[in-house]
């Protein structure tokens, strides 16, 4: 084992970690504000992949414009979904979870209906490889990691610095008190749902150009996202960051030095054991 393998693992882990965080942070936002565990969150990520296929690969629109379009389109679509489907179940974890199972089937099959059964190839957005001594790195993975990090930083600023972000934190702390202070809970819930799903869509665009877009890509991602948020603690954004990076690095190193089934078993078993000793996750609180 030499240094170049190590650095490649780190870059890969960083990229996957950032994408996992982008998906998981929306789940965590929605959970902390609406008390909903949205299992259909991964499908919004899958929509991102297909928006990228449609707009970037077919219509040849600029890559960064595609990201913005995906954020807006998927965000607005998810707000509509939230208004129609999730609004009556706000605060009820169990029915909301079950209804999201139904949404998974609807979304996945309608994408299959529109785009057909085959996985869609998306051209490489940033071709090229950086050579430095023995080391060779894909430019695309670096750019993906950087865009992911920038978006996460932007979300952090939004939540910490703006009025709406403060309203979100207030609702997460105490819904009734926030509503007494005149915070429009309906609006903020929709906003949080839209932002969360929009970010998942952006993750789909980013990863779509690294791999490919397929109707079942959400199923793999949603489990990873759940692992991250229970690793870090449900409803905790720093926990989500920590969990995403841990999982990204663990997987990239694990896939290099072990085989994939072993890594899956170890990952899930470690999370399981963690929950035994720390049921609220690494950085969560009761």
């Amino acid at each position, binding site marked *: 084992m030499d240094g170049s393998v190590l650095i490649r693992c780190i870059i890969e882990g960083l990229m996957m970690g950032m994408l996992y965080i982008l998906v998981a942070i929306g789940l965590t936002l929605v*959970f902390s504000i609406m008390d909903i*565990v949205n299992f259909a969150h991964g499908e919004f990520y899958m929509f991102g992949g297909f928006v990228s296929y449609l707009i970037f690969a077919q219509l040849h629109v600029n890559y960064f414009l595609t990201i913005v379009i995906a954020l807006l389109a998927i965000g607005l679509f998810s707000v509509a979904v939230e208004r129609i*489907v999730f609004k*009556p*179940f706000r605060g009820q*974890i*169990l*029915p909301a*979870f*079950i*209804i999201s*199972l*139904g*949404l*998974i*089937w*609807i979304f*996945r*099959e*309608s994408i*299959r*209906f529109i785009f057909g*059964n085959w996985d869609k190839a998306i051209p490489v957005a940033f071709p090229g490889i950086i050579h430095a001594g023995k080391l060779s790195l894909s430019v695309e993975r670096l750019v993906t990691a950087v865009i992911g990090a920038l978006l996460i930083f932007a979300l952090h600023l939004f939540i910490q610095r703006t009025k709406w972000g403060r309203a979100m934190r207030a609702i997460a702390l105490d819904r009734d008190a926030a509503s007494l202070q005149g915070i429009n809970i309906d609006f903020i819930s929709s906003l949080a749902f839209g932002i969360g799903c929009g970010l998942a869509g952006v993750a789909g665009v980013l990863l779509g150009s690294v791999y490919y877009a397929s109707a079942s890509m959400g199923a793999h991602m949603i*489990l990873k996202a*759940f*692992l991250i948020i*229970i690793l870090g603690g*449900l409803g905790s954004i720093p926990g989500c960051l920590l969990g995403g990076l841990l999982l990204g690095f663990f997987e990239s190193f694990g896939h290099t030095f072990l085989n994939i*089934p072993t890594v*899956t*078993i170890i990952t*899930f*078993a470690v*999370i*399981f*054991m963690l*929950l*035994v000793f720390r*049921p*609220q996750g690494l950085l969560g609180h009761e």
Partner: protein
Amino acid sequence: MNKGALDKPVFLIIIPLIGFILPTLLPVFWIHIFALIFIKIILSVSLRQMLLTGMLNLACVAFMGIGAYFSGVLSTNYGLSFWFTMPLAGLFCAMLGLALGFPLFRMKGAYFFIGTVCFAIIVQTFFSNFYVETFGGVPGFTPIAKPHIKIPGLDLKFISQTSYYYLSFCIMLISLMIMYRLEHSRYGQYWKAIRDADRLIETLGVDLFQHKMLNFAICAFFSGICGSIYAPFIGIITPHDFSLDFVFFVIMYAVVGGSENFWGPIVGVLVLSVVGEFLRGLGQYELFCYGIILVSALLFMPQGFLGFYERVSNRIRFYGKKVSP
């Protein structure tokens, strides 16, 4: 407890009677479907029993898989009788459930069902990739020894669809009887109380942990039994048979039928499986229809078919009278 029409003892005699004469009237295809329906009924009723405590157990199909592999491997590779491996598979799953309960019941609410999802994934990955010589890996484990009864004067081998129909029907009746009695016993009351007011009954001296464990172990037991019937019936078991999608189906049956009522999941399985056979013509868009059914059921009749039926019948009964139901 609302005594609906289905609780009358007449039905308890008529329904088994219909069940016993049904195979003489149906074509073989529907006998096969009904045998599967009975297995799904056991599963969804045991899932609903977990829902009584307010916990959604997504690992029940994983337990079914463990039961299927356990009894399949024991009866095929080691030549043990099916009648011995079936209860053994159930007990093994129950023990595993007890062991798993220690970590799982430390989690609450959303953590709990994510924890059970973790377990389901571990089980599926395990059977796909580990001990491939024993479990057959992704292609599946086949052939599986068929159960047979061999006593002097009678030699019955379970090969035809009809024999499995009767096997699963009898086991379903026994399981339903046990679960019905359990729900209407002291334990059932505790389970409902855990969902509604866990802090309160804890102050009354009820050990929450013990009752949750008992419930989980019973659910795992019946799931294991389901798996051990399923394995020789289908003849091949693959890890994919016990994937998360199947759990979603079981949840759908319980919720669309009505999870408040004991008979809800049974109605749900019957209606949705029969409807599902007609949806099969849609090919891959079948799942889309199931999604629409699940979402609209939760939006428009959150209490399920039976809750809806009860509400409508109450409204008809009290129509025109100035009495609030």
